[in-house]
């Protein structure tokens, strides 16, 4: 830091810049804390009233002031995990495909552009698409499946179009570009020398991809997965349009369900008294869930970095 006696114009500008950067980063943290504080303050009556039982309570009955968030917690976790399960393999495959030279450059550029365009579609449009395209498909597939394999708890009928699976499928499509784009850039960032080295040692292209390039890019792929999971958990509009918004606890893929985000979007407008507080508590749970995912992700990230450090 320059001392006040030797301030020159350039040094002053530099200080201003540094000051601005600090202020901006502090402001970001402050806003986050402010949001948390506001939610906590509103949630306080419900926190005191229901405590931890809120998390394990399976009934959400606003007119009787009984609030348990378990069905929505289960819905949130299931939809995002299923979405990730559906989106991850093709997402990573597309990323590998686009980072290799299987196709001429311009064609790859075009495909990359198209995949990333998926991220730019507003979620309400995904919701509408889900209503007109995915729901009828899931309805018929679900009816067929639940009639034959209904004894499996996850496939129990009766099958609804607005269901856990419908929401998961559309969520999968929404998080696909996140997985692909970030994985692709980390794959592209793998130094050429590593690939050349692998070839020089006589490995085939697939050996080079799976043994060298993918492990090297693993931290980026993990980061992509965490971001995708976070997006899936917080998605509101498309889910509220597709999941059937049922507060009943259910594990069947073809049954209507609900997520924390869709619960908030649905009920906040007309909520009063304790219901507002319970919704704020639910928001707090959602924030905490996201935090847990991020921390777990960070841990996995560090682990992968350490395990693949030898390659880098």
């Amino acid at each position, binding site marked *: 830091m320059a001392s006040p006696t030797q301030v020159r114009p350039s040094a002053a500008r530099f200080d201003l810049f540094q000051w601005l950067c600090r202020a901006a980063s502090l402001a970001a943290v402050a806003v986050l804390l402010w949001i948390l504080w506001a939610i906590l303050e509103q949630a306080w009556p419900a926190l005191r009233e229901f405590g931890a039982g809120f998390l394990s309570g399976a009934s959400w*009955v*606003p007119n009787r002031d009984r609030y348990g968030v378990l069905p929505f917690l289960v819905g949130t976790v299931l939809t995002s995990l299923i979405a990730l399960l559906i989106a991850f393999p093709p997402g990573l495959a597309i990323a590998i495909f686009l980072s290799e030279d299987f196709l001429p450059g311009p064609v790859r550029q075009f495909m990359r552009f198209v995949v990333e365009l998926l991220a730019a579609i507003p979620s309400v449009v995904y919701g509408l698409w889900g*209503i007109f395209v995915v*729901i009828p498909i899931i*309805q018929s597939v679900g009816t067929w499946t639940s009639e034959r394999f209904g004894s499996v708890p996850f496939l129990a009928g009766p099958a609804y*179009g607005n269901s856990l699976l419908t929401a998961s499928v559309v969520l999968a499509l929404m998080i696909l570009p996140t997985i692909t784009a970030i994985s692709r850039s980390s794959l592209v960032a793998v130094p050429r020398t590593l690939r050349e080295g692998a070839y020089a040692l006589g490995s085939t292209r697939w050996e080079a991809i799976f043994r060298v390039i993918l492990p090297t890019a693993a931290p980026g792929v993990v980061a992509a997965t965490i971001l995708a999971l976070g997006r899936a958990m917080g998605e509101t509009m498309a889910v509220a*349009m597709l999941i059937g918004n049922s507060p009943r606890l259910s594990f069947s893929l073809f049954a*209507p369900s609900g997520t924390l985000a869709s619960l908030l979007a649905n009920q906040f*407008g007309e909520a009063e008294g304790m219901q507002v507080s319970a919704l704020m508590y639910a928001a707090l749970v959602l924030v905490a869930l996201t935090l847990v995912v991020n921390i777990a992700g960070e841990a996995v990230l560090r682990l992968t970095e350490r395990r693949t450090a030898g390659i880098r």
Partner: protein
Amino acid sequence: MKIPSLTLLLTALVAAPLPAQQLSGAGATFPAPLYQRWGVEYNKQVPAVKVNYQSVGSGAGVKNFLQGVVDFGASDAALTDAEMAKAPKGAVLIPATAGSVVLAYNLPGVTGLKLSRAALAGIFLGTIKKWNDPAIAAANPGLALPATPINVAYRSDGSGTTYVFTQHLAAISPEFDDQVGFDKSVTFPVGIGGKGNEGVTALIKQTPGTIGYVEYGFAEQNKIPMAAIENKSGNFVMPTPESGAAALASVELPENLRAWPVDTAAPDAYPISSFTWLLLYKKYPDAAKLKALKDFITYALTEGQTLATSLGYIPLPESVVAKANAALGTVE
């Protein structure tokens, strides 16, 4: 022709406008299309008064009203006694319009469905699961009801529509009252939820075998068949503006004008209808604002009522208009 009128318009825009009186209101979403239409039509007649109504929901409307941040509020559930007491300058309830909640259904090849009281409650309790259930079939001897499951659609968001509908179910079925109860947001034991009247309408249209409750106007506009509902006198009544008005006329409004025609005994009345209220303060310190507000509401209660039917609402019976006008007179 075009140019002078454009110049005129520009002059009108540039010239300092008359000191406009802005009336701001907030509240129920159900009557919002009508209130907003009133605002537009009234502004054509009295350009100096602008009415800005925000459909933020009954709950938020009551909140805003009690905080005193709006000139008037609006609520499908009126005000409770506790809320009345909390109003900073005293509160006056003015019934402004009314609506019916209808049971809209999607059963290919079936129209003219009649639902008995037991059938209606059973469907929404989840005890009646198939369309050809004897409880439904008994009232519909001429209909070929399929053996398919009944898919129930309800409002996932809090709403005055749910309030009115569940209030009726709770009145006709002690079991429903016990298991579910009534409010703006309840937990039904069956079915799927859609957001808003349009969300439920979409659910019904999309899946054959679905039945759900929506405002009359939505079912009418979307041409979805509506069920005739058995009223207290044992008659099956179709929802129409006339049968709704018959229900409203059967209520004796108390002094605070807060009453619901819950399960009315009138023989030709549609049983699931309700008023929706404007919330006014007892005293307005600003005389100009008071006059503008009173004039606007007088318009709404007279000429405004003629717009109600075309938008799917029920015009207020004359006896109610008279009482509403009397209540408006007490505002000063």
